[in-house]
C-alpha cells in the first residue's frame, strides 16, 4: 500500500504539464484511453473478430476495402453514420434514445479504474474492483431501456432474458473476483497488479502462485461471457430465435453504439480477468540468471503493452468460444449459473479463505 501514491507521479507530472494556460498534459491523459479505445474497437474488436471467425471457418473475411480489408470497419462506420436514424413512432422515445447511450457509457466507464501501467490509471479508487463489478450491472439498465422502449416483442424478450442473465451471473462473477480480492487483500485495481509483479514474472501471478486460483479464474471467465452477452450465452440477442434481441429496432449510429459497447465490455472483462488473476501490467517474463528479462520488460510503456496483450488474448478466447459453440437455452443458462457456477464459486471462496489463513 505504501508505494501506491508514488506510482502515480508519472501521470501526475503529465497532468501538471501546461503550455501557457492550456492544460495540455490533462488533455493528453484524457486522450490516451480515448485513442486506445477507438483504435481497439475499430481494429481489433470488429476487424479482428471478422478475420478470426473467417479463418476458423475456412473463409477469407473482409478483403476488398483497403489491403486485406483493413479499412472495412471504417467503411462500415461511415455507412452506419449515413443511415437514417429511425425512431419507431410507437416507441418510447426517451428510453429508446437513452438505451444505447447508457450501454455505451457504461461499458467504457470501467476503463477509468483499469491500470494501464505502473504509473497510469484513470482513477485509482480504493474500491476499484467493486466499482468495476457495479458498472457491469449498470449496463442492464441500458439493455432494459432499449428493449422496453423499442415497443417490439422480440426486443422485449431479449431485454427480459438479458436482465435475468446478467443479474444472475453477477453472483458467481463477484464471488470469483472476491477470491482474487482476498488473495490481494485489497479492492484497488492498481494494488492487484503491484502484488503480482516481481522478478520471477508469471510465477507471481495468482493463477500460478495460488493452487486454488484456477477455479475462480474459470468461473469468472465463464460468467464474464454471460455478462457481456457473448456466445454461448448470447441469448439476449440470439439471432436465430429473437432476430436481434434487444436491438432489433435499432439502426444507424445507435446500432453502432451497441456494437462498440459490446467490444468495450469485452475488453473490460478481459482486462479485469487479467488484472485479478494474471498480474495486469506485470511482465510475465522471469529474470533468468543474469538475463534480467523481467526488469527489461517493465515500465510504463511495457506495462500498457502487457495488459493490452493479456486483454487481447482473452478477447481472442471469447471469439474462439463464440465461433465454436452453440447457444444455451434460457433454463440451461440459469442451471449453469445457479447449480454449477454459484456452488463452485462458494467452494472456491472458502478454499481461498482457508489457503490465505494457513499458507
Amino acid at each position, binding site marked *: 500500500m505504501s508505494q501506491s501514491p508514488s506510482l502515480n507521479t508519472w501521470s501526475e507530472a503529465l497532468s501538471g504539464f501546461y503550455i501557457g494556460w492550456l492544460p495540455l498534459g490533462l488533455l493528453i491523459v484524457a486522450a490516451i484511453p480515448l485513442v486506445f479505445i477507438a483504435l481497439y474497437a475499430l481494429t481489433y474488436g470488429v476487424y479482428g473478430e471478422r478475420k478470426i*471467425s473467417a479463418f*476458423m*471457418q*475456412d*473463409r477469407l473475411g473482409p478483403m476488398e476495402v483497403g489491403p486485406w480489408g483493413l479499412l472495412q470497419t471504417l467503411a462500415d462506420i461511415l455507412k452506419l453514420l449515413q443511415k437514417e436514424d429511425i425512431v419507431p413512432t410507437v416507441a418510447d422515445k426517451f428510453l429508446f434514445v437513452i438505451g444505447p447511450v447508457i450501454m455505451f457509457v457504461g461499458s467504457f466507464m470501467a476503463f477509468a479504474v483499469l491500470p494501464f501501467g505502473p504509473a497510469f490509471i484513470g482513477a485509482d479508487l480504493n474500491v476499484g474492483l467493486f466499482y468495476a463489478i457495479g458498472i457491469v450491472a449498470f449496463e442492464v439498465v441500458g439493455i432494459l431501456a432499449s428493449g422496453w422502449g423499442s415497443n417490439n*416483442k422480440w426486443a422485449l*424478450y431479449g431485454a427480459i432474458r438479458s436482465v435475468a442473465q446478467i443479474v444472475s451471473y453477477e453472483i458467481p462473477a463477484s464471488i470469483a473476483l472476491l477470491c482474487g480480492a482476498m488473495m490481494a487483500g485489497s479492492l484497488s485495481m492498481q494494488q492487484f497488479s503491484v502484488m503480482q509483479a516481481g522478478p520471477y514474472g508469471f510465477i507471481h501471478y495468482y493463477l500460478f502462485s495460488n493452487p486454488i486460483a484456477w477455479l475462480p479464474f474459470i468461473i469468472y471467465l465463464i460468467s464474464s461471457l454471460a455478462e457481456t452477452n457473448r*456466445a*454461448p450465452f*448470447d*441469448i439476449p440477442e*440470439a*439471432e*436465430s*430465435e*429473437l*432476430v436481434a434481441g434487444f436491438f432489433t429496432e435499432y439502426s444507424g449510429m445507435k446500432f453502432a453504439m451497441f456494437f462498440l459497447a459490446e467490444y468495450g465490455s469485452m475488453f473490460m472483462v478481459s482486462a479485469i480477468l487479467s488484472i485479478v488473476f494474471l498480474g495486469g501490467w506485470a511482465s510475465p517474463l522471469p529474470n533468468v540468471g543474469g538475463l534480467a528479462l523481467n526488469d527489461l520488460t517493465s515500465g510504463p510503456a511495457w506495462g500498457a503493452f502487457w495488459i493490452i496483450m493479456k486483454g487481447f488474448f482473452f478477447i481472442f478466447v471469447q471469439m474462439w468460444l463464440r*465461433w*465454436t*459453440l*452453440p*447457444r*444455451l*437455452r*434460457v*433454463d*440451461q443458462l440459469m442451471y449453469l449459473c445457479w447449480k454449477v457456477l454459484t456452488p463452485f464459486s462458494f467452494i472456491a471462496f472458502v478454499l481461498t479463505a482457508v489457503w490465505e489463513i494457513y499458507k
Partner: protein
Amino acid sequence: MQELGKAELNSTRIIRQNDNRVVIEKDLDTEYMVLSMGPQHPSTHGVLRLECITDGEVVVEAEPYLGYLHRCFEKYCEKVDYPGIVPYTDRMDYLAGMNTELAYCIAVEKLLDVEIPRRVEFIRVIVSELNRIASHLVAIGTYGIDLGAFTPFLFCFRDREHILNLLEWISGARMLYNYIWIGGLSYDVPADFKKRVAEFVTYFRPKALELQKLLTENEIFVKRTKGVGIMPAEVAINYAWSGPMLRGSGVKWDLRRNDPYSVYPELDFEVPVPDGRFSDIGDSLSRHLVRAWEMDESLKIIEQCLDKMPEVEGFNSRSAIPKKIRPKAGEVYGRAENPRGEVGFYIVSDGKSTKPLRCKARSSCFVNLSAMKDLSKGQLIPDLVAIIGSIDIVLGEVDR
C-alpha cells in the same frame, strides 16, 4: 406425465413434464401474446410464418401459415409436356433436385413401361445419393445455425460445394440439374467422374467425423436437442411422416428398402434408426443423428455403385428415351426416398395428349411440417426453433 420440476412464483406454477414440455398454472389470469414468427425470420428457413400464442417464453400454440412461395406447380404441369415438367420438379426441392427428378421419372417410366439401361440406373443412384449428402449437409449446417453454432454451417457448405461442382460437371448446372430424364439421362458422365467421386468419398469421411465432433457430440448441442420435440412413432405414422423424421421416431421405413426402386435392392446399406443410446427416440437429436448416419450410408452406396457400374463403350445415355412421350390412358403413383422423406408424383394421363391431365406432387416437407402444431405445444421459443430446424423444411417443396 410426472412433474419433473416445479417452481412457485407469485402463485404461478411452472411445470416441466418429462417430455420437456412446459405447463404454466396460474391462480390469476394473464394475457397471452401473439408472436408472429416469420415470414422474415432467421430460423424459419425461408418464408414460413408461425403464428405463436405465447405465455412468456412458452409457446401455447403455434400455427404454421404457408403459401408464400406457392408457384402453381400442378397448374404448370397441365400446360407443359412430360419432359418439360422435370425442370419444375428441380425447383420444388431445390436442395435435392436429383432425388425429386428421380421420383418424377420413376412415375412417368411406370406409366410408359420403358426399360432403363443398367448404367443409367447406377448413375442415377450415384447422383441422387450425392445430392442426398449435399442436402443433409445443408440440413445439419442450418440446424447448427438455428442453435447458434455458425462454424459447422460453413464447413458443411464447403463440402457441399464439392458435390455441387461434381454435379455441375456432369449435368451442367449447380442446383437445378434437369439431368435425369424420362428413360435416361441428359448426358453420360465424364471419363474421370468415377475417379473424382471416389476421391470425394475419401475426402469427405474425415470431414464428416470432424463435423460430428464439432457439432453432434457437443454437450451444449446435445442438451439443446435431446428430449426436445418428442414425436412418438404412432403419432408420426398418423401424420404420414416419412424419411429421417419418421426414422427418428424409431420406425425403420425407407422407400429404398420397403418399396425398392432403381438398383437399390442390389446394394448393401443400413437404414439407420436411433436406438435410444444417444438420444431419446423421436426427439430432435434423433432426427439430426439419422441425417448424420445417412450421410455415411450414402457414402457406402456411392462406393458400391462405383464398383458395380458397368462400363459401356460408346454409351448413349439417351438411347432409351422415347421419341414422343404420350402415355396410354391411366394413372400412376411413383415415389422415391428424398432426403426429407417420401416424394411422390401422382400422374393421370388421358392417353391423347403429351401433357399430363393431372400431376400431383406429394411433398415430404409439407406433410412433415403439418405436425408443427402438435409438436410446438408447451415448448419454449428456443425449443421451437430447435424443432423447426430438426424438421428440415424446404419451403420450395412445402408450397410448390
